[in-house]
């Protein structure tokens, strides 16, 4: 016979195993973010002098997207990211008053706002043209590009070796912004999530175990436990998606026709 007590312990065991696994996975992400943050602390800053790519491009970030019409009352296109591409064409960057050679391969990190601006709908005519294709089965395909060109300020996660900047402790990263703040924010979010999530699980357990066992307060605890079990993993996955490196962070987005 499986008594309520046995099943209660079993259910709480499942709850805690899940909470601990979620915390351990978040810890892995935190470890990675802290690794990037340590590299970012030693990053070198400079201004692009020349780029080997077209139009003096030093590096380029590109997201392949497919847009499809949605069922909204107002015509709109929802974009899906198909692939992320970073390309360091190479060139020279002025660092500490000296021009230094930089060459790929490497990652290109572009600020969220900059990527959003590049992905924004340029105008009504462009929207109409895209929408006509977005309602077709193959959708509307586009590339969102952000180029790093001569005159742009860059932060490079790498090491100066003579007249060159080379990869060190990981891939070379050309960032259009100082990533320390973003990485620090991500690390804090993860670091706060882990104890908060475990604390929430502990609170649920405490409520569920309040005497009289299996009374009204216990029922509330069990409902909270079920809600925690069903809710903690979507929150953890959202956080994981949020702290993805800028070179592979989701852009997605929507274009909607302006009200006429």
């Amino acid at each position, binding site marked *: 016979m499986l008594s309520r007590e046995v099943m209660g312990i079993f259910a709480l065991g499942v709850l805690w195993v899940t909470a601990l696994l979620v915390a351990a*996975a978040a810890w892995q992400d935190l470890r990675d973010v802290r690794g990037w943050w340590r590299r970012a602390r030693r990053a070198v800053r400079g201004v692009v002098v020349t780029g080997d790519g077209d139009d003096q491009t030093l590096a380029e970030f590109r997201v392949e997207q497919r847009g499809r019409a949605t069922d909204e009352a107002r015509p709109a296109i929802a974009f899906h990211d198909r692939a992320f591409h970073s390309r360091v064409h190479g060139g020279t960057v002025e660092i500490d008053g000296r021009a230094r050679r930089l060459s790929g391969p490497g990652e290109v990190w572009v600020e969220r706002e900059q990527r959003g601006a590049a992905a924004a709908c340029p105008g009504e005519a462009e929207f109409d043209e895209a929408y006509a294709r977005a309602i077709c089965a193959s959708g509307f395909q586009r590339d969102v590009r952000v180029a790093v060109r001569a005159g742009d300020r860059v932060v490079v996660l790498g090491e100066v070796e003579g007249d060159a900047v080379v990869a060190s402790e990981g891939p070379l990263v050309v960032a259009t912004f100082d990533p320390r703040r973003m990485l620090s924010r991500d690390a804090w979010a993860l670091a706060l999530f882990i104890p908060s999530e475990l604390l929430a699980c502990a609170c649920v357990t405490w409520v569920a175990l309040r005497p009289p066992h299996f009374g009204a307060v216990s029922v509330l605890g069990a409902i909270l436990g079920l809600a925690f079990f069903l809710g903690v993993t979507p929150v*953890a996955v959202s956080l994981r998606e949020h702290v993805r490196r800028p070179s592979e962070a989701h852009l997605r987005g929507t274009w909607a026709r302006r009200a006429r």
Partner: protein
Amino acid sequence: MTSGAAVGAPPAAGEPRPVSRTRLQRLLGVRHASDVRQVATLTIYFALLAAMYVVPACRNVPVFVAACAYSFLSAVVGHNTLHQSMFEAKWRNTAVRYLLSFGGLFPISAVIPAHNLVHHHFEDDGQPDWASPVHVRFEWNLLNLLHFPNVAGPLTFNGVTRWAAIRGRRGFRRQYTRELVFAFGLTGLLLLHDFWTGLFFVVLPQLWGARSFLRINIIQHDGCDLASELDHSRNFVGKTFNWFMLNNGFHTVHHNRAGMHFETLADLHAKEIAPRIDARLDEPSMALYLARTYLFRWSRPLPMPSSRAAPSATLPAKEAWTDEDAAAAEPERGRALGEMTV
């Protein structure tokens, strides 16, 4: 439970339906004689849940374990029916979808975008499959098995939500919402009537089944070469196992020929897959594989080298995802294509 070949074999494209049918098949209104086994699986599962909910003497370890196992098997039935509907009558297919949604506490129609359209291609239009093994990365491999549903579940439901927002999927959204309301509504009523019994002896088996259904993805694909024509899936070929699992152990052939009825998979595997597949992907026993891979070793096995060939997963050209689609579809043509008329 299958009868003779003339009765059990599915009709090929353009062929008339076989006349001879078993009495049980006629009574239940199922398309294939072996679908009786699927109905039996669901009946046993719901009987176990009902028994535990109503009869205190049934709340014991064997019945609880059996209910959890049958919860998973009912999700397997859900998977099969969303590839190829089980009943001749539309209303029976609709009714069984609601029951399956209650059985796993999730709208079973989520399987259409998540499994049929994304997982069978091993990618979400360039991005990883929502249930790809790459989403977990613990060094201790057992944790990957345990944690996998915690990641694959939310990714799947996020993906389904994005997919369903696209124009022309209103029918799917309605169907999905109705199943969601039914699954949570009925479960809520059971909890309201008898909270602790409902929680322990209905909700726990429901969650076990749904999570095992997600977990099977890592078991069947971890370390496989997803770019290969054949070596993309791990097969479990035990006869008894496949009898209960409705031939879902023959996973390579299922991926390559998604529209085939489950009863044909064993023969197809023996003829088309077994002679050509990497022998390591033909496992005699899932229990032994799980013990060897997750219990008696710490690290995750190295993946197979990629063949870089294009995946050959094939899907029916047009699948009926909703009741409206099913009504519009031409029934005979639908059967020939292996449509998921729901």
